[in-house]
């Protein structure tokens, strides 16, 4: 039974979720993958978007800032 999928933008700040898919082309997929953001990885949302600004997430030992548009393409589920 799979949980409902959400875009990363819809998750509240402070919550930890698991990435299930990344929509969009190869370019974006590869860049995120190289940073370690890929299906199956847990990410914690550190700060939410402010005035359509970027979202900051923590994954493993790293923090990454991602534009809001990119986050809409990252589908996640609750852990």
């Amino acid at each position, binding site marked *: 039974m799979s949980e409902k999928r959400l875009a990363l933008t819809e998750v509240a700040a402070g919550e930890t979720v698991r990435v299930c898919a990344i929509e969009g082309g190869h370019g974006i997929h*590869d860049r995120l993958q190289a*940073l370690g953001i890929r299906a199956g990885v847990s990410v914690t949302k550190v700060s939410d978007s402010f005035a359509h600004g970027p979202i900051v997430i923590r994954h493993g*030992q790293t923090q990454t*800032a991602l*534009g809001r548009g990119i986050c809409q393409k990252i589908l996640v589920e609750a852990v």
Partner: protein
Amino acid sequence: MKRILLMGNPNVGKSVVFSRLTGVHVTSANYPGTTVEYTQGSMMVRGEKCILIDVPGTYGLHATSKAEEIAVEMLKNADAVINVADATNLERSLHLTMHLLQQPIPLIVALNIWDDARHKGIHIDANRLEQELGVPVVPTVGITGEGIKKLIERIPDKPRTPAIEMTEQDRWTEVGRILSIAQSLEHRHHTFLEFLGDLSVKPATGIPLAVLVLTVSFTLIRLIGESLIGYVFEPLFENGWRPVLEALGGRMRPGGLLYTLLLGELVDGRIDFVQSFGLLSTGLFVAFGMVFPYVFSFYLVLSYLEDFGYLPRLAVLLDTLMHRLGLHGWAVIPMLLGFGCNVPGIMATRVLENSRERLIASTLVSIAVPCASLQAMMWGILGPYGSQYVAMVYAALFVVWIVIGRILNRVLAGESPELIMEIPPYRFPPLRTVGYKLWRRMRGYVKEAVPFVLAGVLVVNLLHFLRVFDFLAQAMAPVFTQLLGLPKEAGLAILMGFFRKDVAVGMLGALEMSPHQLVISVTVLAMSFPCIATFVVLAREIGVAGLLKAFAIMLVSSLAVGICLNLIL
């Protein structure tokens, strides 16, 4: 000679390891992507001289970015690779190692930032890691030099059998397997720095913090700069240098060519360091007495913020604003650097992704970001009338920055790409590395900017002596007197700005204008011609076509702003 590549993810202390290995210090900063252009040096390995190349930071070898393309290209004729891994972020570092293992080139892993990993409760068994990877692994601490000697000793020279071809998914699985064997994590609470790091990116706390950081930085820069001028440089010039110049003057004929060139004209019977305009009087005083202290204090504060890791967080907060100007948050780096000197500011636009962004950012830096020299002179000339006049110039430049950025964003084809940026952890930078960076930057100022100041003063003096200026002033008078409400001599100063803006502001100061006229002329000067050094770098970075565009925008906007200010004030 053998070629050894130094490779790793961005921001793993690669440049610091490079300087340890070669003894050549390169500029490194606590933000990803500093090394856009590569640096090379030489090092000795077992008595043999080798070339060491600092390859731009990469996350993999897909050639998806400019940096990765360069890395893939360089690998084709490399004799060995030193892979710098971040011990505090081993998973992502090993992902690149997996890519490198598939190359037949001798490989060694430097497990850098080893000390921080211990503090963070990350325990890595270097021996097990070495067994699993099948290549030497040496723990290192770049900033103290720990492990560097051992790293050099263990650089392998025999070709390796490349690992089997893997898919991206396989690589991450393999990294996960190795980590489960060689690394153990201690559960621990957030440190104060991590807590502070989170606060700085959350909008509710981050924006007040940014205002605080920028206010404190600006105040510090002013305080340090002014104290250096008041307590060190002015006394030095007045008590040490003036007697030398006066003795020299006694041996020459006042009013002669040599006297005018070296010492300038006397004001009230004595040498005036700001107004005399001799090479040895005003020339040296502008370069060292007025500008050097501010450049020093600016770079001191900026270098610390940079190495502390604050700038990427500022980039996150300002991303939305920068998008309005057709840029993304990362463009705050060239902007901030531009406040020191426009030349490194424009060079830093290389971290931006496409040529559209680079054109916008370079144009904005050269028009609306006043460099430290210019700011020092602004304060020097306008400050005595009250800081509200200096504030007017800053306000005008800020409005220009926004308006030109918005217009360019509308007019130029294309869109600004979205932000994908790693945020490094906060680290208290060792004073030694901050100090060394400061030293490099100050040496750059003395070597590259000071000759231009002196040349500028010399040219002004010669033209003045030959009365060329009077002719030019006559020809350009209508523009300045009618449209801008300035005395015709101000036009000359603004033309002079092409050689050196700080010198030109000095000329304005000697004209006895009203504070409002000074505000207008200083603003027009700040926006119009870039100094010759900026001009050269602009041509190199955005091409001659880009330069001409920037130049046209400059002329039109500075004239427009001058006219507006003349109407408002």
